[in-house]
């Protein structure tokens, strides 16, 4: 069965391949349009197959997942019902507040700062298999009005933003990636800080919270939303809740962790917000 082989490998061929790779790396890092052209081409062919495989996968694993989730869901139902009672009460109070706010706004002739955005729902059909880098592919593209830079929500919380888009698909980079920074603010006093993805925290399902000034009125359990000054994310999108908070050694700032609302382990469907942050340029 064993065919005798040549003593040394085809070294020239390897050098050529390395050259091709280096060339591709160079071209793709300087011209993003080259990437999208290549992606689009390959996707036209592979998209139906990916969709099919995804369906097969969810059929295989769907049942198992359902069983596992049933227990969790029952527990959560209990807590959610309790939460709902609290929220109902809060909502009633907020409605009164909103009425008052609108009246005051009308007086001040201010525009609404947090308009309701148009969204489109999308299924996740593929995920990056690299275990250190979280990006995923959704089945909506330019045909549905998705463009690069749009924000993506999952389960009511910010999940990421669109980095590449084709006719019928888009790639989304998630905020839990190490190196991803989201400019955020506390809902209590509007103080700004940074929510950062971190490889170390990711396994616990947490994000880093950096640059919280000592003067800021932030406490554990506070709601954190995207800030007005972010150049990538629309203002007022829910990110999560403060989990821990500690004073830094320099006694000037605090750092901590944040529990995101979006459940990144069980992403299945997402909402793409069909609006782009206007940055003025």
């Amino acid at each position, binding site marked *: 069965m*064993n065919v005798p082989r040549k003593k040394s490998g*085809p070294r020239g061929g390897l050098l050529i391949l390395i050259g091709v790779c280096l060339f591709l*790396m160079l071209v793709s890092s300087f011209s993003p349009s080259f990437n999208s052209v290549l992606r689009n081409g390959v*996707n036209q062919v592979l998209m139906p197959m990916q969709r099919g495989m995804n369906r097969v*996968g969810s059929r295989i694993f769907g049942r198992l997942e359902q069983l596992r989730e049933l227990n969790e869901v029952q527990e959560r139902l209990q807590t959610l019902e309790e939460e709902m009672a609290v929220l109902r009460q809060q909502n009633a109070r907020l409605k009164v507040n909103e009425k008052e706010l609108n009246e005051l706004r009308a007086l001040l002739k201010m525009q609404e700062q947090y308009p309701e955005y148009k969204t489109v729902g999308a299924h996740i*059909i593929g995920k990056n298999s690299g*275990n*250190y880098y979280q990006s995923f*592919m959704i089945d909506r593209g330019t045909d549905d009005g998705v463009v690069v830079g749009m924000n993506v929500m999952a389960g009511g919380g910010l999940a990421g933003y669109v980095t590449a888009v084709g006719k019928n698909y888009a*790639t989304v980079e998630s905020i839990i990636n190490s190196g991803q920074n989201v400019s955020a603010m506390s809902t209590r006093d509007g103080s700004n800080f940074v929510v950062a993805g971190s490889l170390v925290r990711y396994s616990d399902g947490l994000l880093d919270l950096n640059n919280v000034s000592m003067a800021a009125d932030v406490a554990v359990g506070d709601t954190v939303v995207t800030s007005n000054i972010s150049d990538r994310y629309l203002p007022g999108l829910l990110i999560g809740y403060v989990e821990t908070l500690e004073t830094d050694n320099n006694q000037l700032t605090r750092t901590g962790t944040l529990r995101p609302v979006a459940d990144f382990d069980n992403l299945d469907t997402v909402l793409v917000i069909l609006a782009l942050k206007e940055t003025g340029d």
Partner: protein
Amino acid sequence: MKRILSYAALILIFFLVQNNIFAASSLIATVPNLLLILVFSFGFIRGSLEGMLIGFFCGLLNDVFFGDIIGFSALMYSVLGYGMGLLGNLYYTDFVNMPLILCLFSMLAYHIGTYLFAFLIPGYRGFGAYLTSVAIPELLYTGLMTLLLYPLLRKVEALIEKWEIRRSKDYA
């Protein structure tokens, strides 16, 4: 020709299973690197040329779909496939523990390469964290899959070889 078609089919199947079934399921936290298994297995069994070419196309597919910079995985996989071909020349192919050792070697090389490229540039330090939270789990799962898939790939290889022999007999 049949060989090339079989390789293309294998690459496609492995890619789809890895990214659209395994990675899309929430039950599997760490996705085994199936494409890597394909690359080092065929590199080892068939030699440098084929390892390198399969590596190139596997990497390219990965890059086109998910990479920021196209060509990086392709480069790593090609070099790996080539290196495994060289190893294949040195060692007896049917050695039982070989696939696991191959898997270990390739994963280590792959992760060190990825780390150097992807994590050092944005100023990310903590190699220890990368090792424990990413590299080692992936290594374990991939090792497990290697035990299942390596014998299977050897059978596929034997099948392709049979076709080729039959074909050359037809011509003769």
